[in-house]
């Protein structure tokens, strides 16, 4: 047993790459060509610079920037759900719970919420307001609809101040989170665990009989996704300066799932795109663009209360026109466009 062969370690990856190369099967054509590598690196650097400098195009406190920061935080969340739904092929409709856990964690530890503990006679655990002055036992983890507010903004060297009038530091922090999550996504996809997820998604019976531990592999997907959801929740709670029970509706899980499906299940860049597109449809197109346009032609149309209906409609349209997503992942494309491995081929078809 060689030292580099950790459970999910690089040993397996190198082995896989070596074997693929030896038999002339490469993940992407031209991977080995240096000129292309440098070109790709240059593109990445230019794109990164553009994304980092992007908020200077707008007023530091503008509405657009506000929506943009939220969209970037949604990218983190969608990429987390993509690990569960896209990579491992599992359905997770409770994703909002992890978002809530992250949000409440920052709410508890990043606010004056704890100051009320043992404030007066009796036991007071995380109560606020009137409850914390009454005698007896009071436990309140969520502060209900009233919520926990205000929440302290972050303190990071070189990025301050974090305040509602200057949204650029928020943007950069969110961007940093996206960078981390992107890196983890790419590395996981190409890892031994990533191949186990694909195997599970493609054929669970075969995966099990090859020795892929089903429970552990699925749990790893849920846990990874949950970690990113929590991260995003903590950020958004701090950003919106509040965490309350109304933020965590079931429909929110569907909203994030729709981002993943719209972009392309399992496709990292597709999911990034899907999250940004849906987020802006939600925060910009439906509440401001559509009412403005319609009032110009003299009709008043407000679709805000219909937004989930619109998302549902979008999903239906996608399923009909482009089920593989906006930027599909390779295997989904094979599945939806070329119909490989679908239909009654596996058992009965006899093509020799």
């Amino acid at each position, binding site marked *: *047993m*060689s030292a580099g*062969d950790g459970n999910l370690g690089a*040993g397996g990856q190198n*082995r*896989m790459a070596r*074997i*693929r190369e*030896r*038999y*002339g*099967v490469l993940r992407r054509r031209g991977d080995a060509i240096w000129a292309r590598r440098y070109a790709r690196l240059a593109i990445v650097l230019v794109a990164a610079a553009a994304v980092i400098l992007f908020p200077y195009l707008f007023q530091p406190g503008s509405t657009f920037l506000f929506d943009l920061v939220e969209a970037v935080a949604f990218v983190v969340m969608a990429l987390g759900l993509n690990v569960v739904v896209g990579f491992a092929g599992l359905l997770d409709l409770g994703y909002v719970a992890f978002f809530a856990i992250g949000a409440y964690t920052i709410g508890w530890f990043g606010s004056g919420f704890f100051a009320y503990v043992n404030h007066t006679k009796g036991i007071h655990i995380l109560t606020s307001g009137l409850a914390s002055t009454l005698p007896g036992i009071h436990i309140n983890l969520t502060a209900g609809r009233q919520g926990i507010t205000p929440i302290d903004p972050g303190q990071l060297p070189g990025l301050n101040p974090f305040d509602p009038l200057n949204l650029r530091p928020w943007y950069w922090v969110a961007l940093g989170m996206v960078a981390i999550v992107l890196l983890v996504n790419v590395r996981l996809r190409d890892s*031994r665990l990533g*191949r*186990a997820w*694909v*195997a599970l998604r*493609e*054929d669970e*019976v*075969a*995966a*099990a*009989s*090859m*020795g*892929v*531990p089903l429970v552990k592999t699925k749990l790893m997907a849920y846990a990874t996704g949950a970690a990113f959801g929590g991260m995003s929740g903590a950020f958004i709670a701090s950003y919106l300066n509040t965490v309350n029970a109304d933020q965590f509706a079931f429909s929110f899980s569907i909203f994030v799932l729709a981002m993943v499906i719209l972009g392309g299940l399992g496709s990292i860049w597709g999911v990034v795109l899907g999250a940004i597109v849906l987020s802006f449809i939600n925060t910009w197109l439906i509440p401001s663009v559509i009412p403005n346009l319609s009032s110009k032609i003299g009709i008043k149309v407000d679709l805000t209360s219909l937004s989930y209906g619109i998302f549902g409609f979008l999903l239906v349209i996608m399923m009909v026109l482009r089920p593989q997503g906006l930027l599909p992942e*390779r*295997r989904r494309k*094979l*599945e939806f466009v070329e119909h*490989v*491995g*679908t239909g009654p*081929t*596996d*058992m*009965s*078809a*006899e*093509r*020799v």
Partner: protein
Amino acid sequence: MSSTSGGELLEVDDLHTFYGNIEALKGVSLRVSEGEVVTLIGANGAGKSTTLRSVSGLTPPRTGTIRFRGRDISVTPPQEIVRLGISHAPEGRHVFPRMTVIDNLMLGAFLRRDGGIEADLERVFKLFPRLEERRKQKGGTMSGGEQQMLAIGRALMANPDLLLLDEPSMGLAPILVERIYETIAEINRQGTTILLVEQNANFALEISTRGYVLETGQVALSDAAHALRENDDVKKAYLGI
């Protein structure tokens, strides 16, 4: 080792396996010795596949014992069973349809950390040259025969001591069945013990040392393979003679 029966690789005793409330195995017992090819024959629903699934841990038995090299594996999870040296090519091929042949094969070596993987890949390609030709092709785009080769090759990539094959001839043209069975015999000659399930009993018994006839979840008959091929009841019921 608690094994009392000498050189038995696999000992299955009084196996009762259920799908929900349906008792698919009603006390199956069998033995496989090192180096053998053992065939289970029987009609649909006789419990052949369930026996294999019980051994590989995909459908663990409710009662009864399975011992591999004397060690009780009746409640061991599938990944541990693969690690111990039992590899299962399940019924219906189950290749990963949108993975290349190489990636399919490499998943067979999922649990391995030793240095012998590349040598085993070469061995599989030597056994099935067609797979090397098709190495970049997606599993789901191949013919039934090629998919069967891939399923067997993938199971071999776990470097098993005991290979479980479930209906390797299913849905294949007779010429291909013959070729697949030649290869299975070759795998056995290279040192792998094989437990085989087959409806198409002619070919299977030809390369087998012994056989068991299963009927409604029980062993109805067991004998040397050549004796089963001469048995009038077996001939009539399973060999189509």
